[in-house]
């Protein structure tokens, strides 16, 4: 008997691989969507600061970031729908599902923290654009009478 052919017809055991895939996808896809939606919902406030309260730009960048997040994570999830052997016992199903769900969670978690890092960097950069002067004056001009004030921004251009 060819040892690579181990399906139910030959071994008499049921093929449970599809159950394993089903359990795996039932957890990872909703998880990806939930994390993605959380990022979109809570990332908006960071992006508003990053882009000087420009809501249109913030929403656009938010959407673009979300698309990248979904593509990478769902792509990774899809790539892992491959059990190289036919799963014939329930413990094997649980092992397969747990192993792959665990990996997916770790990768999504890593992506999530990377996204937080990017968002906080963008926010900090945006806040630096409207930062007050970084240093205090070394000296001050002596005060002068309020009349005839040539240093006002309106008169001296």
């Amino acid at each position, binding site marked *: 008997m060819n040892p690579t052919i181990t399906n139910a017809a030959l071994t008499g055991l049921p093929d449970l691989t599809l159950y394993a895939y089903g359990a795996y996808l039932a957890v990872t896809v909703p998880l990806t969507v939930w994390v993605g939606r959380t990022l979109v919902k809570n990332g908006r406030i960071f992006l508003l600061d990053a882009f000087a309260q420009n809501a249109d730009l913030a929403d656009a960048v938010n959407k673009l970031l979300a698309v990248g997040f979904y593509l990478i994570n769902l792509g990774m999830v899809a790539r892992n729908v491959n059990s190289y052997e036919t799963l014939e016992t329930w413990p094997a199903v649980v092992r397969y599902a747990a192993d792959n769900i665990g990996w997916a969670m770790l990768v999504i978690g890593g992506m999530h923290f990377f996204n937080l890092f990017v968002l906080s960097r963008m926010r900090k950069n945006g806040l630096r*654009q409207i*930062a007050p002067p*970084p*240093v*205090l004056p*070394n000296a*001050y001009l002596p005060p002068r009478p309020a009349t005839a004030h040539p240093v006002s*921004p309106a008169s001296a251009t």
Partner: protein
Amino acid sequence: MIRQLWVLYDAECGFCCNCARWLAAQPHAVAVQLLPQGDPRLAELFPGLPPPPRAELTVVDDRGGVYFGDNAWLMAMWALRDWRPWSVRFATPTLRPMARQAFELISASRHGINLLFGLRGDAQIAATLHQMEPAGDHSRCGDGRCSVA
């Protein structure tokens, strides 16, 4: 809220004049006006302005604050839209000593830089133009004072 800065540069120094022109050409976050050190308008604009050490870069804000040395450098950087984030970074305790050293190095060696690249300040060029003018003939310079600023 500071709305305008006056940047006083050394017009005797070609490198400084080039820097001033670069500064003027950048997108500004606040209004910036460039004035050469020792300009007669200064006394009228800023009575009581303390003289800068070694004719170095000086910045005056519209609330009467006067900045010298690396403070002036950071303020000039702060006035530029693209460089404002860097002015905040350079002002942090970690980078501040480095910024001060860099400013002092460039500021102290500016005459060497001029010699090295053969740069001449606006003031020197104006003086040369003035010398080339035939005596008594002010037609080419209008009011008799040549200016290249």
